[in-house]
């Protein structure tokens, strides 16, 4: 197997006296769709946020594309982050910018793309998620599901090597979850490398290539969706799966 796109080894993170990650290791290969499940407080989001250094790990190594990113300097970190997309639970669109400006800002500023080129790319992506008519709108004029699809497009405009999703459907009204998951499924089908923290078990079951069950700051169990959902080994995973609706 080729070298992993993301290599994470022995990751530890504590907030004050609370140890959120107690030594987490995994490799994420190109084209994989890794879903992280587990009870809240189990460290899923923190683990994800360490991957693009929104959180600085206290201990452990993160290699992205063969580069040690924990000890990289600021300029390197910015470059690395620009190659990793991230989608947040609360969308975090920029409310003072139009949808088009939300999408083209980073390509123009970070990738130095010409405005016309950035806009052309943005319109193609908007078209792909069915929101081309919203280019001139502002975020507050959109529904939650539309905002999240725009947030995904904003990340995709940077042509990332991996997309990180931090509970992308948790803040949505139930009827809007589907439209966002559809976009994510489409991405997965087209070979995008994805790491997804979610409570959507059906998505995990249908789309993921590997599932990590995080509990108490550790990867408590790991396997294919069939293994995790079909024959969970640990009691804690069985208990967790019993509590979440499928």
């Amino acid at each position, binding site marked *: 197997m080729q070298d992993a796109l993301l290599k994470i080894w022995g990751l530890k993170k504590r907030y004050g006296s609370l140890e959120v990650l107690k030594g987490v290791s995994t490799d994420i290969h190109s084209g994989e769709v890794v879903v992280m499940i587990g009870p809240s407080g189990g460290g899923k989001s923190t683990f994800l946020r360490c991957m*693009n250094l*929104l959180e600085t790990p206290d201990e452990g190594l993160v290699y992205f594309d063969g580069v040690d990113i924990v000890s990289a300097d*600021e*300029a390197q970190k*910015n*470059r690395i*982050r*620009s*190659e*990793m*997309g*991230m989608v*947040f639970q*609360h*969308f*975090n*669109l*920029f*409310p*003072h*910018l*139009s949808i088009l400006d939300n999408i083209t*800002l*980073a390509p123009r*500023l*970070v990738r130095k793309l010409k405005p016309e080129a950035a806009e052309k790319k943005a319109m193609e992506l908007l078209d792909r998620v069915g929101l081309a008519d919203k280019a001139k709108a*502002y*975020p*507050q004029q959109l529904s939650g599901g539309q*905002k999240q699809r725009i*947030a995904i497009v*904003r*990340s995709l405009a*940077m042509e990332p090597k991996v997309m990180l999703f931090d509970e992308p459907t948790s*803040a949505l009204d139930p009827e809007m979850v589907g439209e966002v998951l559809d976009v994510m499924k489409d991405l997965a089908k087209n070979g995008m490398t994805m790491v997804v923290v979610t409570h959507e078990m059906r998505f995990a079951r249908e789309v993921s290539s590997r599932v990590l069950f995080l509990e108490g700051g550790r990867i408590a169990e790991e396997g294919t969706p069939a293994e995790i959902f079909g024959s969970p080994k640990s009691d804690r995973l069985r208990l967790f799966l019993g509590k979440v609706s499928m």
Partner: protein
Amino acid sequence: MSAFLEDFALCFVKNGRWQYLVNGLGVTLEVALAAIAMGLVVGFLVAVVRSSHDKYGHFPVLNFLAKTYLTVIRGTPMVVQLLITYYIILRSVDSKIAIAILAFGLNSGAYQAEIIRAGIVSVDPGQMEAARALGLSYWRAMTRIILPQAVRNVLPALGNEFIVLMKDTSIVGYIALIDLAKGGDIIRSQTYSVYLPYLTVAGVYLVLVMTFTALLGRLERHLRATGADPVHNDS
């Protein structure tokens, strides 16, 4: 009625005394607008240093200097600061207008800094995270994402500070600079008439402030017409 007209002629027409008010108004506007601009520059820098330090521990030395500056400026009266600037710090400088602009600009900078800092703190932390996750540097994220939203959130408070500053410039007479207030005072001293000079000066300040308030109101409505409602910000 004729007594009023006589008084009016004495105060404003005779010897071209109206010029005290017109020239004084020019000085008031020059000092106020330049000091507002200077205060904004100082305010932005200090606010960014302070909030970056509080949130991420950046710039410990600059933060110490900024805090000292805020304490001294906010802890001493404006008049005293103006006199110290004139008689001690810049005693070799000839231009009283430049001295007044510097003193008022530095003073207002301290207040604007705290207002803008409150604005920065009010912006959802997710905005900085989203900007950084896209690969923007800290400064780019600050200037392109955080500050525009911060300013919009505190525009009413900033406008209030501009109005206070505009009226505060009426103490520049302490360094013998002839602004609108001092101009009215000179007319009073030459004519022994108190009502017309002072009431006219007060009226001109009032019109200035009302005009300024209206302009700010338009700017606020314009910003609200685009971007989100800053209070309910779940974008």
